[in-house]
């Protein structure tokens, strides 16, 4: 075979999919968070991290801005904001 048809694992890390985001990104307000971890569970990229209340954040290098975390948050503590919005953190 002239062309290799397999790849080493972990290559998703090499693709910084944050550039796919259009218009909005999630803002983790870190005010009313109850640490239910639903945002970690629903994130299709597996890039939400955090442990204690009001400590949760996402990795904008990979976040595609799908908005699932904001939609699922029972405390409305994650907001989808326009990309131009200055980060509070």
């Amino acid at each position: 075979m002239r062309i290799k048809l397999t790849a080493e694992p972990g290559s998703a890390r090499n693709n910084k999919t944050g550039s796919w985001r259009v218009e909005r990104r999630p803002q983790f307000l870190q005010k009313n968070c109850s640490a239910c971890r639903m945002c970690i569970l629903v994130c299709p990229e597996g890039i939400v991290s955090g442990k204690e209340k009001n400590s949760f954040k996402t990795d904008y290098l990979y976040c595609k801005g799908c908005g699932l975390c904001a939609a699922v948050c029972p405390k409305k503590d994650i907001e989808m904001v326009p990309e131009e919005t200055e980060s509070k953190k």
Partner: protein
Amino acid sequence: MKDFIEGSEAVARAVCLCKPGVISAYPITPQTHIVEGLAQMVADGRLKCQFVNVESEHSAASVVLGAVAAGERVFTASSSQGLILMSEVIFNIAGMRMPVVLACVNRSLSAPINIWNDLQDSMALRDSGWVQLYAENNQEALDLTIQAYRLAEDSRALVPVMVCLDGYVLSHGLEVVDIPEEDKVAQFLPPFNPAEKLDTANPKSFGLLAGPDYYLEIRHDLHQAVKDTLKLIPEITADFKRIFGRDSGGLVESYRLEDAEMAIVSAGSVCGTIKDTVDNLRAEGKKVGLLRIITYRPFPEELILQALAKVPMVAILDKAISLGATGPIYADLKAAFQGKPGKKISGYIAGLGGRDITPDTIKEIFQQLAGPEVSNQFIGLKSSF
């Protein structure tokens, strides 16, 4: 050891001798006896192998794809609707360069539903990147199955191989078959040791996406690999002869083509009937012959051009049709001879859905070949019911 067995059992015994690690298949007429036989061998402990029961042919093909990727020798078999249901995976197996061996017991396609023999099922998958071999008799079905593993697993090839045998005519017909000894098969077929395999200790991704920047080259690679088996097959059949002492398989077989004025080109068990008819017509002084295609994919164009170079009239007997066009072998042959004038090449369709092809059918084709050139003339078509 010689035994009086049907083609299905010949294939099952060949597979058993090649010692696959995983077999998965779904029953379908007329293929069922092959995997029924293998299931019995596994149940009796004669074949140490994982036999995976599945709910469909699509799953059967997927199981063997996964198992071969994990480094196991595998086998599956199907017919007709089952093969067509597998087709999505069939293309993936070739694209991933997985050396799967599949026995296709040829049967017509629905609708109307019909369980009898023609070549429409495997012909529909001729563009899938598989090597396709067509057996004339039960002995060849056994021999081609053993050769198929050797070819598929050769590191220069790494392409899947489909061994095609005619439903009922071979699968359920009994013939004396010479079954090779286990140690000779071991001598002919080295253990399967792929360079890359699925391994939890050393994870890798298989079956990846390739965008427009890569796909064209990868398809060209596969095309080249399938074409290159034209060089490997004669090498493998020569080695087969050295170990087992018989000529079997190969690319094409010329039968009484020297000085022939008319020849039929065909594939599969119908070639036995054509050979008998050729012998009878030769006895009457008619200069006729046969070119039997054993390897249909890759298409052995050069050998066919050589074999038929001096034959002025050529008939192709297709037991399949690209509906709205011509028979598949006719189309390939006509393309091979393009730009080479002075030859009559006529295409005939016969035997669809198990309609008997008798010596009279063959004689009729030779008679029609003397008439006007045709491209897709049906033989034996009834005008009223």
